[in-house]
């Protein structure tokens, strides 16, 4: 069981690195869907004990549906209707981003190393907290360094995945309703951001957020 959990967590790291190392939106969306699936599997292993199995299965099912299918589909739908064919011109290029990703990874593992941060309950794997920290920091990095609206939404979802992992690790006793509520929140956020991407694309013929400064007058 632990092996599957650790495989899923390593998959989360790999998909995040793929997003950092690629400037193509196809890669970003695909990696996001795969990551959503991996993250969705985690509750099965973290919440499985003491009668919480039904809750874990329900949560995993909803997470996988939302993160691996609904969000990518919503973003893809928004993209289909926007003129988006230009290359991204990010603040930090692909290779430096990937190197920064490795640095963030080392930092996350150093902060979240065993015995340094103590979770309230013992976790089945010492990887959970470092991976959660890495995912949050990497999501923040993507939001800060990319200048296309779509990449920033992807960064936001990566950040949210990290928060979700922390939530699973620390608040294992939180009621199902709260988890569902947060999933619903993100769903609406993605919906709104999809609509926003669509309108930005319509107004400026591009979804580069730098273009938004022309709104001044």
């Amino acid at each position, binding site marked *: 069981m632990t092996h599957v959990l650790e495989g899923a967590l390593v998959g989360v790291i790999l998909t995040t690195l793929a997003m950092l190392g690629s400037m193509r939106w196809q890669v970003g969306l695909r990696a996001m869907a795969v990551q959503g699936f991996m993250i969705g599997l985690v509750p099965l292993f973290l919440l499985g004990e003491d009668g919480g199995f039904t809750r874990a299965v329900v949560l995993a099912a909803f997470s996988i549906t939302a993160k691996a299918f609904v969000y990518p589909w919503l973003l893809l739908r928004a993209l289909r209707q926007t003129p988006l064919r230009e290359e991204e011109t990010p603040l930090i290029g692909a290779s430096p981003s990937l190197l920064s990703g490795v640095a963030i990874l080392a930092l996350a593992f150093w902060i979240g190393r065993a015995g340094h941060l103590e979770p309230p309950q013992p976790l089945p794997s010492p990887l959970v907290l*470092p991976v959660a920290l890495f995912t949050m920091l990497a999501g923040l990095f993507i939001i800060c360094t990319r200048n296309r609206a779509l990449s920033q939404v992807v960064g936001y979802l990566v950040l949210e995945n990290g928060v979700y992992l922390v939530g699973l690790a620390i608040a294992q006793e939180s009621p199902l309703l709260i988890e569902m509520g947060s999933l619903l929140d993100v769903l609406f956020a993605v919906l709104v951001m999809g609509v926003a991407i669509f309108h930005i694309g319509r107004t400026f013929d591009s979804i580069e957020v730098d273009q938004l400064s022309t709104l001044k007058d």
Partner: protein
Amino acid sequence: MIPGLIHLILGLAAAPLLLSVINRTKALFAGRVGQPWLQPYHDLAKLLRKGAVYSTTTTWVFRAGPMVSLAALLAALFLLPFGGTGAVLSFQGDLLVFVYLLGTARLALVLAAMDTGSPFEGMGASREVWVSALAEPALLLGLAAVSREVSSSSDPGVSLSYLHQQMTPAAWVNSGVVLSLVAVALGVVLLAEAARVPVDDPTTHLELTMIHEVMILDHGGPDYAFLLYAAALKLWILAALIVGVVLPSAVGVPVLGELIALAGVTLVAVVVGVVESIMARLRLMRIPQLLIGASSLAALAFVLERQGGGLLR
């Protein structure tokens, strides 16, 4: 000692055969028959019978290049374990010596290429150094990750042979994730170091796009034979290294380990052939991304282990 020597002879004799395996795999994909299995040996024999011609602008550096290159690779072969038994030579920290022997072979080749004064060879030399500088972190980090994975604090010291003997099937059960990451990283290093597609194309005949091949344009006769043999040997060394540190060939049964290792080396050659058949060469500017990606995988493997045996627990 005796099995180590047998493996040494096996590597020396069978290295050119790997080129045939790659060639046959590519031929299979293209629907051709492919060259005879022993063609690389015939090529070498033909070249060795010829005389060498040296340009008057070259110095002893040019003549020393092939010899030093081949000698360094031979020395690296002495450190390489195979088939579940240790290498002929092994000592603490020989992984670093191994990596730097590969570097010495490359340095001799690069200096010889620069010595000709040809602009094409200088360009090839510059690219070769550029690619290997990017591949070296992946190689070292990959080896470091495996070392941390299999050794404990009570061990006397880490050598390639030691790593190899720890690589039992149980190691895979415990730390399969780390080992698969390292395998992918080292595979990319092999493609870059052995000058195969997608980093370099060994069959190209346009100087502007060559990396390895353009550096040896001015060598002829026995010198060229040395270089061809050194390239084959390098492929064997890297393939055996991947098999040695990743494939669980230390099963304890003498002949079985050797068979597993041989099958592994052949499999690596087949994979290289498949990659070469289904992929185009990368644009030169994309190569750093590939190699940095490989280094990131190796770094990830290293960090996962740093978690204090997290994956082993």
